[in-house]
């Protein structure tokens, strides 16, 4: 009976694998607010589909809903990898509407934005537990990566056994320190890039194909 069960499981794994290979993988773009997640999502979507995913802004929590761009086909080394990109709101443990008032926003708008931001972060956490097959974790390489949100999120991603690619973004800015990010998460490969300028995107696409293909 054990032999038959093992044989059936093996066949099931092979057939599941064959069918799964045809399904686009859902790749969540995660990270703290203002790391450049939407800029990256737009860069990938524009490079391979011609369309953008959503508006970019220097104001935190511009992205307040997870947005999906489906069937992005990335060609690398003679093969095509199809992914769905999920651009998620920046994850945080606190949202205070008063911070938006510093960006010339009326109180009503700031309160509405903060409410939408909290809903978006809750949604992003739910996606991470239930609905993504891999994670691109974007960090601003000009800021300290040793934050609790980063530590917790990387821990959550690892506990789910999701393949994760860490991107050190904003290398075009003067204070960029890619090594600091590599030191913070030595168990993962860190790829430098500027999503805004499109620097090093070739390596990013090669790694996306390698990790999620």
């Amino acid at each position, binding site marked *: 009976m054990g032999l038959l069960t093992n044989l059936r499981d093996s066949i099931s794994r092979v057939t599941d694998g064959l069918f799964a290979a045809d399904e686009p993988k859902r790749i969540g773009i995660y990270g703290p607010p203002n790391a450049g997640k939407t800029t990256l999502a737009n860069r990938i979507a524009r490079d391979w589909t011609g369309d953008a995913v959503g508006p970019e802004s220097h104001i935190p929590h511009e992205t307040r809903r997870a947005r999906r761009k489906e069937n992005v086909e990335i060609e690398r080394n003679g093969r095509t990898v199809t992914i769905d990109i999920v651009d998620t709101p920046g994850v945080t*443990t606190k949202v*205070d509407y008063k911070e938006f008032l510093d960006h010339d926003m009326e109180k009503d708008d700031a309160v509405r934005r903060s409410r939408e931001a909290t809903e978006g972060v809750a949604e992003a956490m739910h996606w991470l537990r239930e609905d993504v097959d891999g994670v691109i974790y974007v960090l601003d390489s000009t800021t300290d990566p040793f934050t609790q949100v980063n*530590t917790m999120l990387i821990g959550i991603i690892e*506990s789910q056994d999701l393949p994760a690619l860490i991107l050190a973004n904003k290398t075009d800015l003067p204070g960029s320190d890619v090594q600091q990010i590599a030191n913070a998460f030595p168990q993962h490969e860190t790829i430098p890039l500027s999503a805004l300028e499109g620097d090093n995107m070739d390596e990013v696409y090669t790694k996306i194909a390698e990790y999620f293909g």
Partner: protein
Amino acid sequence: MPGPKANVDAADDPDDGDDGVRIDMISGARMEGLTSMEKIRLILDGVREGNIVILEEGLSPDEESKLIEVTMTEISPDDFTGIEIETYPKAEAGDQSFLDKLMGRESTQKLTVIGPANRIETLHKDENLISTLVSRK
């Protein structure tokens, strides 16, 4: 069923509004029998009262994820702006026993400090030290 309470007796609960900051240090043994949602409720109820909650053994990654999610649903303008949470960085996998690795059991034993976002500020953090500033109100 009433939710678990960090403070056992109301008579032991001084008026913590003016004079100081209350710190609830919750042992691993107390958390052990609770479900994930009971742990999160225990933490958030304390934090929303303005207390600092210190967990001897911390939360699992899945529970941390749910804590963020539930915290977001409870944030409201001029009332609750969320939480500040600090733990030591995750222990290396090498700290786990062979049996734990084999059974997929994670070691979550990491001292964790949680407080209201508007009252607690992290001054310094590294592998061995968490230094925080707690304001009264």
